[in-house]
């Protein structure tokens, strides 16, 4: 049984079909890449999978269960973790507090117990801090424990965001451009980190990534989207040399079917629809 299976996923914003009949499968222990030029609908696909958008048609299955209609927080509780394209963390909090916040569904006490100050809470909070510190150590970010986010560099923030996603204790992790803001050396390190995380924590991953060497190094399978449609799929080497993929990225001999109107940036859609 696949960890994640997307069937015939379609979403329209007004007259615009942002994703058209996308089929996608992520199996246990796999790291799957999702590629495509800007505006291809990659982040929109993430938003549909994690419940931020309601797809117009199609289903999302998580370990065989139809989770299409579940709200984001329920999916997070099920074990679908995600990161955002532009650093999704609580910016007024410290690093440690962010990692504690990310463990929201794993606290082991209820909101009512928290409000009345039940004794269980104190003990559980200690465990949460321990776990947060362990994650910081794992990522080599221990020195930033009590810093506020404003003072940190973008690369550090991206890594911390990965830490927050790990703190939600995911079984399936969706990473939106994890290597953005990182140099070649750092993104190489990130690749090794992702492989290690899979080995040690058994996390299955789906990642949006533009950095081809990283994709080639970590992904078992790659899907390429263009204008909301699946352009190609296969192992990284196959996709890399696929003529249509090359055309889509470099703007070479684009097949006529693809020469339609440009889609808006994913982030703008996200901002508009959710604001």
């Amino acid at each position, binding site marked *: 049984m696949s960890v994640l299976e997307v069937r015939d996923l379609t979403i329209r914003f007004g007259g615009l079909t942002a994703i058209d009949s996308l089929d996608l499968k992520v199996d246990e222990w796999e790291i799957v890449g999702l590629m495509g030029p800007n505006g291809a609908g990659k982040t929109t696909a993430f938003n549909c999978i*994690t*419940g*931020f958008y309601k797809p117009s048609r199609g289903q999302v299955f998580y370990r065989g269960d139809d989770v299409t209609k579940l*709200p*984001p*927080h329920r999916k*997070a*509780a099920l074990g679908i*973790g*995600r990161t*955002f394209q532009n650093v*999704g*963390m*609580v*910016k*007024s*909090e*410290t690093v440690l*507090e962010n990692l*504690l*916040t*990310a*463990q*929201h*569904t794993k*606290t082991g*006490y209820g*909101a009512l117990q*928290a*409000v*009345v*100050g039940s004794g269980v*809470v104190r003990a559980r*909070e200690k465990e949460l*801090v*321990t*776990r947060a*510190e*362990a*994650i910081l*150590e*794992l990522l080599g970010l221990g020195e930033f424990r*009590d*810093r*506020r986010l*404003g*003072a940190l560099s973008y690369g550090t923030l991206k890594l911390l965001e990965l830490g*927050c996603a*790990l703190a*939600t204790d995911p079984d399936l992790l969706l990473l939106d451009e994890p290597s953005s803001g990182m140099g070649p050396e750092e993104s190489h*390190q990130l690749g*090794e*980190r992702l492989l*290690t*995380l899979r080995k*040690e*924590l058994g996390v299955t991953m789906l990642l949006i990534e533009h950095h081809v060497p990283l994709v080639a190094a970590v992904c078992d399978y790659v899907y390429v989207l263009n204008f909301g449609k699946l352009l190609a799929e296969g192992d990284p080497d196959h996709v890399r040399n696929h003529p249509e993929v090359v055309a889509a990225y470099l703007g070479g001999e684009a097949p006529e079917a693809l020469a339609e109107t440009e889609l808006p940036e994913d982030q703008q859609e*996200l901002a508009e629809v*959710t604001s």
Partner: protein
Amino acid sequence: MTVTSPPIAAPALDLDAHRRTRRRLGARTAAALPLLAVVLLLPLHSDGFANIAAYAAIFVMVGLSMNVLTGYTGQISLGHQAFVGLGALTTANLINTGTTAADPFLFGIGMVTAAAASGAAALLLGAVALRIRGLYLALVTLVFGSVFADAIFTLPSLNGQDAGVKAYRPTALSSEYRFYLFALAMVVVCYYVDVCVRRTKVGRGLIALRDNELVASAFGVNVLGYKLLGFTLSGAMAGLAGGVFAFWTQQFSDKDFTAAAGFNLALTFVVMVVVGGLANRGGVIIAAVFFALVSPISPMMGAIAQHTGWLNFYNDHKFYISNVIGAVLLLQTVVLNPGGLGQVIRPFARWFAGHPFTLHDPDGGDGVGAMEGSSVRA
């Protein structure tokens, strides 16, 4: 790249911090004592002092209530007087002392019911407020507050046929100072809840949704549920404050909460939480006490006016003076000092929490973030 440690490792004990904390314990106690003396002994001076101190305690409870709603949850309420009023109305009508002192048991039940009733009303407002934010939320709460108060509080069957519902204190609390101690105990209850909220997943969830609802839900926070929780908790605290207020004035009168008087209160509540510093308990408490002391019913302002020879002027304008002071403080907070009073007292608060004393705090405080992140910006 070395990732060798498993995700769950033994924590390194921060012995240094522990020692630091212990070393300053004496100094911190010494600093806390005068404060405690002022809080407990100054109201012993006279019934007038105790009376206004109890009023300040009620304001502090409302301040903490606003702190949960605006500071943590990032939602604004311009109708908070309705929750305070509903608490007062509920207790007074439930106990309805007539001309005798309240039965202590009923009195206790009345306080709990006041909190429950206002919590429920706030849940209702929260349900409406879920889909709107910023300026629209401000407008909806404004309308909710004034309509709720004007429509329900003025019902003759609930306001003692316009004469007010009597709420005489239980005999054990009949002296001003004892009643003040009771109000102080209720402040401690609200403070305790505030601390519990801030230190647990509830506060973290609220702050996460205040800063970014998408991120909060990706972390597994039920954004709609937690917003409602924020409203309900805040309403319950305000209701408890209202219950105390009914026995402070020893009656429920709709005139305290409707029309201009009610709006005046609502405005003061919002101003005091911003001037105090959003999401900053200490700052909000100081601001709440301050606004209670400069409020029209405070004898302090009258006494100052008399000594300085401005008594006639003061009597003519006393209903606006606290508003003018509030407006000036609000402006200076927004323009010069976005963290509010909380930011100003932060070096002391940090020292009190066991950190070394320093005026320079590179990481800033909660308040600044709250101002940036919250929808209070409208």
